[in-house]
């Protein structure tokens, strides 16, 4: 095929004057990791709260939280990204909207992407948390109450510690999904890995080298996350109980 391969392109200077193309890609990896890490924190906090509230056995609370999950699940992530980026600054009070619009575009896209991905992922984690809590034997809840613990204490000391151990495998795949989904931040202008590869491709015309590099970066990050989550899983496992093999 008459495609002109040039693997040395990574050491050529990028036209934006900030170093080589390799630098562009590495910076992209930093953005991907930064957005994903912060969004993961948001997702865990909101996901656990919503997931717990869905098991609260108070009718309207459960319905509101179910609505939250349905809302984030049934709108494509790209549309959610546009809503946060283009619509949100218009519908909030004008002073806040103006502050967002006047912020440094690099950071405003970063925070928009973080919030969007965080809340989207939180709805998925909420489902896992709810499923984990309902998978526990009913007796655990009752035993806690019989011991005189309050509702928050039952969740804090009995139900949630068990749930976390049950849902570690699905949490791992949610973390991987989050990293993959962070590529959508590229559509609002964040130069994360996919965006960096795309800009490298547009400037250097070395299509397949750029995308190969992005592919390898994603694979490395995936591998690190899988290993990390496995270590955590092993570290928190209760001997002789769930989470331990054999």
């Amino acid at each position, binding site marked *: *095929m*008459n*495609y002109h391969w040039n693997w040395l392109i990574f050491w050529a200077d990028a036209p934006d004057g900030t170093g080589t193309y390799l630098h562009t890609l590495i910076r992209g990896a930093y953005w991907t990791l930064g957005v994903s890490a912060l969004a993961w924190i948001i997702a865990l906090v909101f996901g656990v709260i919503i997931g717990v509230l869905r098991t609260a056995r108070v009718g309207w609370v459960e319905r509101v939280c179910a609505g939250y999950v*349905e*809302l984030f*699940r*049934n*709108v*494509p*992530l*790209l*549309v*959610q990204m*546009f*809503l946060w980026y*283009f*619509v949100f600054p*218009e*519908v909030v009070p004008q002073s806040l909207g103006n502050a967002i619009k006047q912020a440094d575009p690099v950071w405003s896209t970063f925070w928009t992407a973080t919030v969007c991905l965080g809340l989207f992922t939180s709805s998925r984690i909420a489902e896992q948390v709810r499923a984990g809590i309902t998978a526990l034997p009913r007796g655990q809840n009752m035993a806690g109450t019989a011991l005189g613990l309050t509702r928050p204490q039952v969740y804090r000391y009995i139900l949630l510690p068990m749930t976390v151990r049950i849902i570690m495998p699905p949490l791992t795949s949610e973390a*991987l999904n989050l990293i*993959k*989904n*962070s*590529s*959508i931040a*590229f*559509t609002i202008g964040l130069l994360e*890995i*996919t965006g960096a*590869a*795309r800009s490298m*491709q547009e400037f250097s015309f070395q*299509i*397949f080298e750029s*995308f190969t590099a*992005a*592919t390898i970066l*994603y*694979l490395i990050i*995936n591998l690190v996350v899988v290993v990390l989550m496995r270590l955590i899983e092993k570290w928190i496992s209760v001997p002789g109980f769930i989470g331990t093999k054999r």
Partner: protein
Amino acid sequence: MFGFDFDVIWRTLPYVLGTGLVFTVKLTVVATIGAVILGTLMAMMRLSSNPVISGVAGFYVNLMRALPLILIIFWFYFLVPYIIGWVTGAGRPIAVGGFTSALITFILFEAAYFCEIMRAGIQSIPFGQIGAGYALGLNYWQVMGQIVLPQAFRNMTPVLLTQMIVLFQDTSLVYVLSLTDFLGAANNIAQRDGRMVEMFVFAAVVYFLISYVASRSVKRLERRIAIVR
């Protein structure tokens, strides 16, 4: 808050729904059919006793599932013309239309996900049935086509349909190729008329309604067709 301009939505409805949504639905339906067929074949490959065949299928599925769809869309957008040029022996890249490119991408990408669903479906069939099929003198394709796959499809129908809803939402990503799918059409109007709020909220509402109703129906279907064992 300022006035929400319903008029712009009403005025552009023929374009946004007639051109945009039709494109999205067409892409979703054709891609699902293609991806289910390809995915089923790959599931059969993954369950093959030949380590080379199952290894190749496993590598492909894991690679696809590890990468973001946007990156895959770019990959295939640039790669497909070269592959077609190579296959047809033209010796140079052959340009393909946006729809064709998107369709090929979604079939190849989603096949990896449908493969995992069908693998679970095939494995849900008791092995004794396969043994019984061979004992009756059927060959591999007859056992698969007449015994295993019909049941696997039935067991997995709700999951397949749920994945189809995911695919429907994922098609919005063809935006990065500047195609006029539903979101692309809404975006064109939003940029042209400066009506971001109206058009994106409208797009979100339509996506929500379709996905919500569809996932509700899948849940009802799941209860109805469940085989009582």
